């Protein structure tokens, strides 16, 4: 019934469209647009709508365009009917019509018309109207995403448009450049100065794109201005208000900034005054990444100004300030009060402000900050209050003068009425006490007294851990606490139970006379607990501490393992090392690499040739029309002064160049450069990898102090214990064995990865939710390939396969494989392909059939197989024109896993989520 009515309605729309009255047609189109806006399907009206594409009524035509762009992809054949209309319109004398025809034509995502689009773009790129040329620049991106094979031709067009002098075109063509060929930095050289000079007059969105591109460019072309910063650091605040003084300072320094580098900094500075927050942020990040450190503070005010803007803007700006404030406190310290929290702020804004305040804390201002924090602790927003307590903890560890004050304050909070506040205080106190345990046995005693009233499991667990860890400082209380816990063991939460077992074990080792029986009782309770984790831990502890004939070497080390001094946790900002991502980018905001992120390269050690940016002063022929319009412009009074100045600047800089040119070294080869930079990159990568590894280790030690202490043991025992832990933690013994042998050879680091791998396997759901996990490129890709088809059985055709360990492009769940087919017979083999019927259930993405393989030739193709996360072999038929060969691929477990990179914080977060 409903369906029927819907059909009827569309029927009458169709009638209206086919009527002769313009107003009826318009009315119909408006209703259709309404349908599209609601997400309803109106595709069946396509034939009726497309007829109106040549309508004289502009509004009707525009609405038809909207419809066409939306549905052309689905109705490719019918869409072709409209093409000729656009082709005609491309030749229209009215630039508006030409531009809009190109806009729609390039938005129709139908592969067949690629050649037509290419032709239209090429023509439009030389159009006299800058508006049409701008449209052409936009069309480049559209064509590129439709057919990446056109890349080379499109780059030619981009090259041409980059030379364009119109401010209208500049932003759009740089956008196209970033999309199509961001690595072709050589195209920018000749246009660099022009872009710098045009920048102020480009529309605001274009400014953002150009500034981001120029930031990347500058990092490859200029040497670092950050050399002798130390002496300038923070105390030379006056220099940047007075540019002359600055010059002098620069002259005395051995480092001389490339005039082009200076040009960029000078020309972007006024944009800090833009009303567009994205532009201000773009300039700020440019200064952060390119300017000498002592010039940085000019961005501070502008960034603080942005905090007055909308909530979402505040969020992004605060994140960037948080990253900056870690490295350069001085920049934001005078503005500390701008980061005070208001009760009306959204929670994520509050947390970020707190983060920044904590970063800014130093000996001088800590008392002010702590007073402010006291207000926050009382906040009605309990999550925020908890975050404040953590912040206090961080201040306490960072600034030793106030550690005791903070600790006392936190102890007072223990009698707070709110549970979350108490719990958080306990956790933070635990961390603080770890840094200086001996003096604080009274605090531990106090906490033991409070223990009965605390119900939050995390807090209870923390207190128990403290008891166990420092049981020697509280020899009388600890056994009593254990006695109480033995009574309530069965009613406790899992994390509390684990800590009870821990406490029991530690007391057993230090004070076995009083606690032996209690410990045995608790271990017995644990042995029959419902949670396998607790059963495993109990078993492990029992073997470790109670010597018997089977326990062997480990129990000798029991005391050393359990009572080893644990490193104090490092309380540090979540924004530390965030600036590995370019500021202001999406990746920075998410703290994980977004797709399409272009990395900022390190400064080159030696500046590449500067003369590449020199441009002949002679006006290039072929733009007479432009020239005319420019002179016309300069007749207008208001514009003339800036225009002249620009030209002066251009001249000035070119004369400077001629000097620098003579100094500059001979051309460094392009390929040379890239290869060296690549090797640099890879070395730095491995460095960072190592760093990450040690960091992660540290972090793990904090989390599970008792377990990971084994890293201090001889390697053999270490391996055994590690295996033991893994086995008890995840009962996937066979996987562990098969992978771990392989992984131990590599490095410890893999173990961490492994945990994450396993975790992901276990918890597919959370994997999809926690998308902050980013698939990363594999650290190591084996070169070995496996035989798929021997040349004897294959009658001359042999095939080998290899796992590329790259994310498969054919589908999410597929594993990507590389197949090398070679012909060792003496005749050409024809039509090599995979047969359509697959004998097993796996889903296979076949490679395109190979028409012909010459004798002794070989070809490499890639394919994807969905193994359904099992190790079952994928069987399929490899066919040539004459024969069929059954082959099978058996994957190793390791090849089915997806490597991921995650920040330390994410890792711990994930780890907390794992049940176990």
């Amino acid at each position, binding site marked *: 019934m409903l369906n029927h009515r819907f059909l009827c309605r569309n029927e009458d729309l169709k009638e209206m469209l086919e009527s002769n009255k313009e107003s009826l047609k318009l009315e119909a189109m408006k209703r259709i647009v309404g349908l599209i806006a*609601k*997400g309803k399907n109106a595709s069946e009206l396509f034939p009726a709508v497309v007829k109106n594409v040549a309508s004289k009524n502009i509004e009707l035509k525009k609405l038809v365009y909207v419809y066409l762009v939306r549905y052309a992809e689905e109705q490719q054949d019918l869409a072709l009917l409209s093409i000729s209309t656009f082709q005609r319109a491309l030749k229209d004398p009215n630039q508006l019509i030409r531009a809009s025809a190109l806009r729609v034509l390039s938005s129709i995502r139908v592969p067949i018309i690629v050649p037509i689009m290419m032709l239209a773009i090429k023509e439009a790129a030389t159009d006299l109207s800058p508006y049409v040329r701008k449209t052409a620049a936009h069309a480049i991106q559209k064509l590129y*995403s439709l057919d990446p094979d056109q890349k080379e031709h499109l780059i030619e067009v981009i090259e041409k448009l980059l030379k364009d002098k119109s401010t209208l075109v500049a932003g759009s063509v740089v956008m196209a450049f970033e999309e199509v060929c961001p690595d072709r930095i050589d195209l920018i050289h000749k246009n660099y100065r022009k872009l710098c000079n045009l920048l102020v007059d480009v529309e605001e969105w274009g400014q953002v794109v150009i500034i981001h591109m120029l930031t990347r460019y500058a990092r490859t072309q200029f040497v670092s201005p950050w050399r002798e910063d130390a002496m300038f650091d923070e105390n030379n605040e006056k220099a940047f208000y007075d540019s002359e003084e600055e010059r002098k300072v620069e002259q005395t320094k051995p480092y001389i900034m490339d005039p082009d580098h200076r040009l960029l900094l000078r020309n972007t500075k006024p944009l800090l005054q833009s009303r567009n927050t994205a532009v201000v942020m773009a300039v700020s990040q440019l200064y952060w990444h390119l300017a000498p450190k002592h010039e940085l503070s000019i961005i501070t005010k502008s960034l603080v100004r942005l905090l007055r803007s909308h909530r979402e803007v505040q969020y992004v700006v605060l994140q960037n300030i948080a990253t900056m404030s870690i490295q350069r406190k001085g920049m934001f310290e005078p503005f500390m009060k701008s980061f005070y929290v208001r009760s009306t702020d959204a929670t994520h804004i509050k947390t970020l402000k707190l983060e920044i305040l904590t970063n800014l804390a130093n000996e001088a201002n800590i008392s002010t900050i702590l007073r*402010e924090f006291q207000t926050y602790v009382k906040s009605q927003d309990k999550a925020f209050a908890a975050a404040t307590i953590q912040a206090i903890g961080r201040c306490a560890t960072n600034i030793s003068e106030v550690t005791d004050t903070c600790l006392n304050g936190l102890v007072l909070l223990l009698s707070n009425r709110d549970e979350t506040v108490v719990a958080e205080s306990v956790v933070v106190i635990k961390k603080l006490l770890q840094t200086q345990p001996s003096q604080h046995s009274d605090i531990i005693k106090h906490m033991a007294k409070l223990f009965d009233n605390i119900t939050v499991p995390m807090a209870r667990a923390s207190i128990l851990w403290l008891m166990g860890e420092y049981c020697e400082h509280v020899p009388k209380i600890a056994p009593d606490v254990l006695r109480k816990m033995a009574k309530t063991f069965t009613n406790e939460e899992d994390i509390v139970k684990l800590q009870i077992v821990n406490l029991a074990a530690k007391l057993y080792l230090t004070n076995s006379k009083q606690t032996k029986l209690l410990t045995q009782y608790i271990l017995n309770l644990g042995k029959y607990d419902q949670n396998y984790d607790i059963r495993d831990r109990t078993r492990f502890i029992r073997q470790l501490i109670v010597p018997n004939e089977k326990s062997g070497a480990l129990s000798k080390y029991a005391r050393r393992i359990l009572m080893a001094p644990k490193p104090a946790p490092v309380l540090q900002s979540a924004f530390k090392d965030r600036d590995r991502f370019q500021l202001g980018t999406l990746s920075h905001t*998410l703290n994980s690499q977004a797709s399409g992120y272009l990395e900022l390269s390190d400064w080159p050690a030696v500046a590449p040739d500067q003369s590449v940016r020199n441009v002949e002063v002679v006006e290039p022929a072929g733009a007479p029309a432009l020239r005319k319009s420019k002179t016309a412009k300069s007749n207008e009074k208001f514009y003339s002064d800036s225009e002249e100045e620009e030209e002066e600047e251009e001249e000035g800089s070119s004369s400077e160049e001629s000097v620098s040119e003579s100094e500059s070294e001979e051309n460094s080869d392009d390929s040379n450069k890239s290869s060296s930079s690549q090797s640099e990159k890879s070395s730095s990568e491995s460095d960072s990898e190592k760093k990450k590894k040690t960091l992660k280790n540290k972090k793990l030690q904090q989390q599970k102090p008792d377990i990971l202490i084994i890293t201090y043991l001889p390697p053999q025992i270490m391996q055994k214990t590690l295996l033991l832990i893994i086995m008890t933690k995840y009962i996937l013994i066979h996987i562990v064995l098969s992978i771990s042998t392989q992984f131990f050879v590599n490095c410890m680091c893999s173990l961490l990865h492994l945990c994450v791998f396993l975790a992901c396997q276990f918890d597919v759901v959370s994997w999809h939710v926690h998308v902050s996990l980013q698939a990363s490129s594999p650290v190591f890709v084996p070169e070995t390939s496996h035989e798929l088809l021997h040349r004897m059985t294959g009658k001359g055709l042999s095939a080998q396969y290899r796992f590329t360990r790259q994310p498969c492009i054919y589908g*999410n769940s597929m594993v990507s494989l590389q197949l090398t087919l070679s012909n060792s017979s003496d005749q050409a083999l024809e039509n090599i392909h995979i047969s359509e019927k697959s004998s097993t259930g796996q889903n296979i993405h076949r490679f395109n059939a190979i028409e012909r393989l010459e004798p002794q030739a070989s070809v490499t193709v890639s394919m994807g197989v969905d193994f359904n996360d099992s190790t079952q072999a994928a069987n399929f038929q490899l066919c040539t024109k004459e024969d069929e060969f059954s082959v099978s691929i058996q994957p190793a477990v390791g090849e089915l896993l997806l490597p991921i990179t995650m920040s330390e914080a994410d890792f711990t977060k994930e780890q907390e989520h794992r049940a176990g």
Partner: protein
Amino acid sequence: MPNHPVPVPSSVLAALKNKTIHLSAAKMIHSLFLVNASGDIFLEKHWKSVVSRSVCDYFFEALERATEPENVPPVIPTPHHYLINVLRHRIYFVAVIQSEVPPLFVIEFLHRVVDTFQDYFGVCTEAAIKDNVVVVYELLEEMLDNGFPLATESNILKELIKPPTILRTVVNTITGSTNVGEQLPTGQLSVVPWRRTGVKYTNNEAYFDVIEEIDAIIDKSGSTITAEIQGVIDACVKLTGMPDLTLSFMNPRLLDDVSFHPCVRFKRWEAERILSFIPPDGNFRLLSYHVSSQNLVAIPVYVKHNISFREGSSQGRFELTLGPKQTMGKAVESVLVSSQLPRGVLNANLNPSQGTYTFDPVTKLLSWDVGKINPQKLPSLKGSMSLQAGASKPDENPTINIQFKIQQLAISGLKVNRLDMYGEKYKPFKGIKYMTKAGKFQVRT
């Protein structure tokens, strides 16, 4: 405590698995979804190939998790896309992004979209958008090309698509004419893209409003913790032709940090501290500024308060008195006091000396519409609050937010010196108005 991930419906997972990865990353804004307060998508627009609206499930999940509507994170990653949203007028504008792009770029653009809607329809509500869906679509089509901003300047857009007015709607339905402009906006090509050519008025007038807002946090004892002045100059210029204006201040040194409308010539400001510009036609924000925080900020009102809860009693006392302070003899008007009372408060029984108050027992929001402060008879609000029986005494006293207006006063002391016009022959009518308002003005008790 860590937030545990909420499981995603299996249908979403299945949909994700079937989706193939796009080969080339498309930049900028892919699609836009408009979501209302009850979590329904009421408009969608795609600038590239269609993205299924199931992508919004990730947004809804975040929405569910957020305790307040404002707490939804502005950037939400999903397996294949990134969602960037802004919340204005209780509508979420959710943009779908496929790859790296400066998030502020998208956020700023979305706010620009909202501003444009507001400009066109007077209000930006779900009903207004639904009523004008065709204009909305035409606007969005012009504002973005392939996800990259094309025309966001209101002057240009208004030439391309005429704002709907009742008269025009009537005329259009009778004559069948359209509200789409026939010509390429001349501004698009000129050196002053923000101004259209051929502007004509019979009365030439230029009005400037200097509006300053005080952001402050006042502590319990009445001393100022932090106070800042943020100001804007909003203009309404209706001048014929291509006027070139200059505006100068008596005391430009006060302006510590400024941001300009693109029309202002920056070099002139740098050199002479004079605002020189060719104005857009109609309403626009010429300048926003920040008065340096070194200057002492005059706080125009004071609050005497006594809010207390006694342990063990189910009653709390509430007393609030407002008074003027440093107002340079001007009256404090449109005063509105609001406060979020603690959760334990069941009801408030108060007695205002003037104005009216309301207390919402669900949200615990107390608001008191005071009106004008009479220095001879200070407004006060006194009475008792009833607390939940047995509940313990709240830890924190509520924060008090105050709004007010003071006409004919720029609290920073900023004064416009003169406004001159060049380039045109006629004599325009000029006017300047000053006003001070409370921005984020909070009193901690």
